[in-house]
């Protein structure tokens, strides 16, 4: 925050007033449009929902922070009218021509509106500012020059209730945990998308012209004018229904209800909105107004739905031979086999499934099912400035953990923030969420399908191939956030219409040096002896629903580019079905490069075959060969002390089991479902460790499967899994030989576990956790040999440690520790007592941290901490990366942090003999989900230790070849030549660039307003008329204006908006024949 900023806070109303006041009736009110969204929507946001639940406990106030600051050297130059970029630039240069040695430039605005005429420019002026400004002001077309301001807005829900004992404590825990909402598939719209997005509001956003309709921004009108409007394509909307006589829809073929509510109508507005984005024919136009709409009501007005409803509805969609199906829903349960199998069945029947990736961002590891499936087009959200929407779920898929690595998702991103669509009964509204982005793609897909002459070529794989090959990559965003980039409808049209059946790969190349797109691969070079780097590539096969890989993929290192320094192993789906499969590429460094540094390249060649359906020869096959370029950076193996091994194998998560959150305060999100991986919810910790120079590798196999002499520290965080006896023995030996261990534990209290059980409406059964936040009894088995143990205490609270503010969020304490160890204790609240008896008690001297040097010669060190929340991205309040640094200094370099050893909080290590150690919850079902335990008469017993994973390295077939310099520009689809399919010269009509006065926002919904493209047949007639009339008005206006400008340079009067808008249409005419930018 700068010094020259204003800062105000108030209620929502105050905020709006401020906004209006600030904008002063002069600037286009971009904010207003979006602001309407959440107020006009009936959906409570997650925040809202929670606020409502606890409203009787404490008062929640919506607090607004509103601040502006002047941006140095930047000025907004406002013009008298709308001019092209070139004209604006000319005006400014001519105005500044006479000022000597002026150092100025125009700040580029890269957004969908920048192609269109505008009435302002942002200019950076570094020298002679005052005189330059004066000169600028004098130019006849320049209305005024003002300093650029940056506006920061944020909305917060603050708990203004009294802390401590609130009157409704007794119902609190039960009520919250009972909710199964997070488990259930939820519809993915955000009433409050903009709440999340406000952090990204900048001055440029505030000043930008408003893009009106998403179909026009994506240039669907070009295809409409070619006569394609989605006709003949059956599109299904699985949502909350649609009312019978909604004025926006002309071709609703059928509405069916699959819920227990006896209605077909939409009571929420979600389904109507989604259907509108796809197929509305007026006002806020959809993409494919002539498509055949099939409305499936699978959500009740209370947003309830069950897998079984979906199963029956999906069967009907198959019978009806639906072509495109939109699912703006999602949930974390990718292990709901009946559902996942059914989605496969649908795509296998050629239904193109488009689904929302989820609204759980910006946290990683938050992808929703079914959008995370290979056969489904998973859609993420962006705002109109091409920023990934904060809510958009991201991070790799977690199906493959712990042994493998996740796939890249979403597949594609498109507008999902403040998009306009059909209102419940009539009119338009704006909504945010990946729920919104999904129908944008589904509508585009429907429209695209209608452009293809040979519909046989359109299938779930070819459509996805066309979308991702044509998508535009967003700069500065990694592939686990944006997938292949932003939907480009017209390029997709071109690709699809020159498509020949083939296989392709996603991602289409592996460049481990490319940042940030290939994050996290690009964040850590590879070296000899490291755990192999796995890239999980998805094979898309447009040739047929089934396919297979012919022979074996071949690894071809490029000798001139050190390809022989790399070893590659490839595993893949035995059958590619439906339309897709995986190709897991494991990359390692050859021994001869153990101390080499440089870049190595090569490629993997894969041939895919599918039964030929049009071949008269029985048993005929089509084949397609794809090349996967590989580029890696190799460094010499780092010293042991710099290498950290992250134990993934012992982390369990939902699905399938109920593994509760590590922070018990987060009651509306009871499950640990983000994968607990360094590239999902421990991403910040990973980035921190990398920035500190550590190399972090992941152990996806039992502790018996790594060479401990290679690593300084084994990091075990929040482990839920049990341990094989062999693992316990091996770790003991490893630590004797110098490996160090850091454990971040979490709570485990059987009474609390019983208390946090809940009835899950989706699975219709009681859910009892199978461990606590961590599996303390198992951890105690692991560390007991050193005389250490964690307790079943449950503590919470703020404290200070070594001058750092810390928050202990539902952690345990250290129950036993060797007497020559260092133990730090803190004063904390007994959260167990609070959960169980709703009483508050403060406990002094709770041992939270222990450091211990094992006695053997050259033995390693052990550090224990009782809570993992401070290094976990989900629900973290205060990070403690400093503590992790200090612990690593201790474990890896044997440097005891003086701030801890000399702390006043140091206590005598607890012997813990007075209290029994925590026992496992009786009757828990951990064995169902455990890789270690199996059911047994009596107690579950460990299984036999599995063999360690073994990779068979591909025999290299070296090539004396050089790789292309830019890998990602290499051809993504064969036989698709972008220039071949030329779009006809069509006149584009542009999204409206009309500024909006405050208070005018209602006008947007008036059906009779002069909106281009309300109904495409009308457009062709109205626009030339308006253009002609407009031209006349503008001409006369200009004549008057020019004569007046000479005598009276400053003239303030309300701008005539429509004529000016039409004027730009007029200005456009000389270029109207140009091909759209593709």
């Amino acid at each position, binding site marked *: 925050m700068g010094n020259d900023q204003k800062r105000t806070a108030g209620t929502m109303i105050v905020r709006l007033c401020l906004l209006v006041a600030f904008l002063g009736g002069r600037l286009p009110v971009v904010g207003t449009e979006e602001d309407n969204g959440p107020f006009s929507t009936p959906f409570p946001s997650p925040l809202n929902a929670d606020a409502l639940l606890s409203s009787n406990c404490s008062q929640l106030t919506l607090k607004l922070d509103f601040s502006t600051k002047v941006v140095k050297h930047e000025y907004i130059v406002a013009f008298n009218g709308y001019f092209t970029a070139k004209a604006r630039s000319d005006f400014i240069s001519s105005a500044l021509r006479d000022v000597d040695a002026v150092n100025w430039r125009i700040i580029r605005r890269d957004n969908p509106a920048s192609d269109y005429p505008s009435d302002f420019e942002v200019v950076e002026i570094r020298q002679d500012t005052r005189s330059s400004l004066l000169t600028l002001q004098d130019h006849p077309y320049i209305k005024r020059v003002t300093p650029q301001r940056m506006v920061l807005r944020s909305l917060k829900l603050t708990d203004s209730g009294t802390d401590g004992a609130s009157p409704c404590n007794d119902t609190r825990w039960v009520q919250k945990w009972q909710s199964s909402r997070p488990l259930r598939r939820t519809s993915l719209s955000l009433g409050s998308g903009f709440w999340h997005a406000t952090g990204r509001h900048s001055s440029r956003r505030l000043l930008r012209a408003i893009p009106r309709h998403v179909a026009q921004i994506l240039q669907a009108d070009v295809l409409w004018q070619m006569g394609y409007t989605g006709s003949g394509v059956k599109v299904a909307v699985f949502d909350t229904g649609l009312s019978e006589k909604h004025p926006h829809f002309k071709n609703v073929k059928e509405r069916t209800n699959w819920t227990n509510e006896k209605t077909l109508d939409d009571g929420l507005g979600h389904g109507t909105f989604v259907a509108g984005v796809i197929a509305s024919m007026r006002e806020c136009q959809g993409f494919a107004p002539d498509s055949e709409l099939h409305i499936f009501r699978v959500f009740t007005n209370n947003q309830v739905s069950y897998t*079984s409803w979906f199963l029956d509805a999906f069967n009907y969609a198959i*019978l009806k031979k639906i072509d495109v199906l939109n699912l703006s829903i999602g949930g974390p349960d990718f292990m709901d086999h009946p559902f996942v199998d059914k989605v496969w069945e649908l795509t296998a029947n050629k239904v193109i499934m488009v689904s929302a990736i989820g609204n759980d961002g910006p946290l990683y590891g938050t992808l929703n099912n079914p959008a995370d499936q290979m056969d489904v087009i998973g859609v993420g959200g962006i705002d109109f400035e091409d920023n990934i929407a904060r809510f958009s779920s991201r991070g790799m898929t977690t199906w493959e953990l712990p042994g493998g690595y996740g796939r890249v998702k979403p597949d594609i991103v498109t507008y999902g923030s403040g998009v306009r669509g059909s209102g419940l009964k009539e009119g338009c509204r704006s909504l945010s969420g990946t729920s919104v982005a999904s129908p944008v793609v589904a509508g585009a897909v429907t429209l695209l399908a209608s452009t293809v002459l040979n519909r046989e070529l359109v299938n779930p794989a070819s459509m996805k191939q066309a979308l991702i090959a044509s998508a535009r990559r967003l700069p500065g965003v990694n592939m686990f956030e944006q997938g292949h980039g932003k939907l480009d409808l017209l390029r997709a049209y071109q690709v699809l219409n020159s498509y020949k059946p083939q296989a392709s790969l996603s991602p289409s190349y592996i460049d481990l040096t490319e940042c940030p797109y290939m994050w996290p691969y690009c964040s850590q070079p590879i070296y000899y002896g490291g755990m192999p780097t796995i890239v999980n590539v998805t094979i898309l096969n447009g040739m047929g629903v089934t396919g297979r890989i012919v022979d074996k993929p071949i690894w071809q290192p490029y000798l001139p580019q050190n390809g022989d320094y790399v070893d590659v192993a490839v595993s893949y789906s035995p059958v590619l079905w439906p339309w897709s499969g995986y190709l897991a590429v494991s990359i390692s460094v050859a021994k001869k490069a153990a101390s080499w540094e440089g870049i190595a390249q090569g490629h993997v060649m894969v041939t895919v075959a599918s039964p030929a359906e049009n071949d008269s020869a029985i048993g005929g096959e089509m084949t397609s060969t794809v090349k996967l370029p590989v580029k890696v950076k190799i460094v010499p193996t780092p010293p042991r002390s710099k290498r950290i091994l992250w134990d993934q194998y012992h982390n369990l998560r939902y699905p399938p089991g109920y593994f509760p959150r590590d922070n018990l305060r987060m009651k509306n999100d009871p499950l640990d479902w983000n994968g607990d991986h360094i590239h999902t919810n421990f991403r910040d910790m990973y980035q921190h460790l990398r920035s500190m120079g550590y190399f972090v590798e992941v152990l996806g196999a039992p502790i018996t499967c790594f060479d401990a002499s290679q690593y300084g520290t084994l990091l075990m965080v929040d482990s839920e899994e049990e341990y094989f006896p062999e693992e316990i023995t091996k770790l003991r030996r490893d630590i004797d030989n110098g490996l160090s261990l850091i454990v971040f534990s979490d709570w485990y209290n059987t009474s609390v576990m019983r208390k946090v059980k809940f009835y899950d409406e989706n699975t*219709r059964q009681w859910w009892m956790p199978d461990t606590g936040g961590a599996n303390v009894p198992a951890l105690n088995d692991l560390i007991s040999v050193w005389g250490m143990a964690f307790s079943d205490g449950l503590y919470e609270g703020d404290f200070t440690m070594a001058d750092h503010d810390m928050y202990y969020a539902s952690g345990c304490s250290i129950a036993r520790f060797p007497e020559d160890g260092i133990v730090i204790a803190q004063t904390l609240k007994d959260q167990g007592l609070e959960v169980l008896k709703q009483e508050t008690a403060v406990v002094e001297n709770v041992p939270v941290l222990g450091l211990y040097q094992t006695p053997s010669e050259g033995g390693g060190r052990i550090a224990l901490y009782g809570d993992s929340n401070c290094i976990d991205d989900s629900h973290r309040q205060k990070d403690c990366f400093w503590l992790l640094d200090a612990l690593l200094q201790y474990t890896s370099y044997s440097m005891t942090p003086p701030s801890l050893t000399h702390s006043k909080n140091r206590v005598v290590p607890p012997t813990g003999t007075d209290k029994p150690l925590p026992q496992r919850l009786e009757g828990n079902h951990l064995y169902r989900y455990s890789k270690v335990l199996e059911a047994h008469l009596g107690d579950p017993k460990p299984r036999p230790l599995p063999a360690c994973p073994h990779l068979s390295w591909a025999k290299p077939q070296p090539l004396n070849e050089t790789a292309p310099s830019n890998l990602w520009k290499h051809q993504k689809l064969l036989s698709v030549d972008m220039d071949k399919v030329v779009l006809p010269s069509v006149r584009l009509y542009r999204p409206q660039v009309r500024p909006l006065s405050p208070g005018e926002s209602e006008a947007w919904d008036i059906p009779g307003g002069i909106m281009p493209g309300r109904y495409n047949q009308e457009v062709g007639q109205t626009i030339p008329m308006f253009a002609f009339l407009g031209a006349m008005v503008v001409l006369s206006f200009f004549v008057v204006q020019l004569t007046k400008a000479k005598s009276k340079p400053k003239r303030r009067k309300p701008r005539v908006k429509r004529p000016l808008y039409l004027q730009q249409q007029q200005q456009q005419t000389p270029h109207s024949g140009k091909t759209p930018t593709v």
Partner: protein
Amino acid sequence: MYYVQEERTIRDRTLLEVRGSDHPIQWKIKFLLGNSSRQISQCRNSIQGKRLLTDELGYVCERKDLLVNGCCNVNAPSSSQHVCKSCLANGCCRIYEYCVSCCLQPDKQPVLEHFLNRAAEGFQNLFTAVEDHFELCLAKCRTSSQSVQHENTYRNPQAKYCYGESPPELLPI
């Protein structure tokens, strides 16, 4: 409170389960009796299979033995008609394509008719839209609301495709 909840969910469930014939659904299926060796030039088939397909004459074959006209090549060693391989006595099969093939046996018509006359409201949309024996078998063999317990688990993952009237056997989780 919890009881109320459970009662309600039980009521919700039964909505989709087979129940009495107070509102029989108006099905309109034309069964083609007996003459399954009839000659046709084009076949519809079950489309989705990973390895196997069933054509409308009830032949199951591997994908490689499918003719251009969509029919199984009856001369291929993998092809056979009206096979109930992997199907149990309760009419539930492990493999979808065999379920469809078995269901297409002419003698299954009474079972199917009986089912249709008693089918629950929840299945009304589906089975009133089905037009013939083949479409009925394709639809009937699919997993549905009848196939699951606790919503996200199959009643019997080993025999979940049923042409018969009863749902798959309920196995403990």
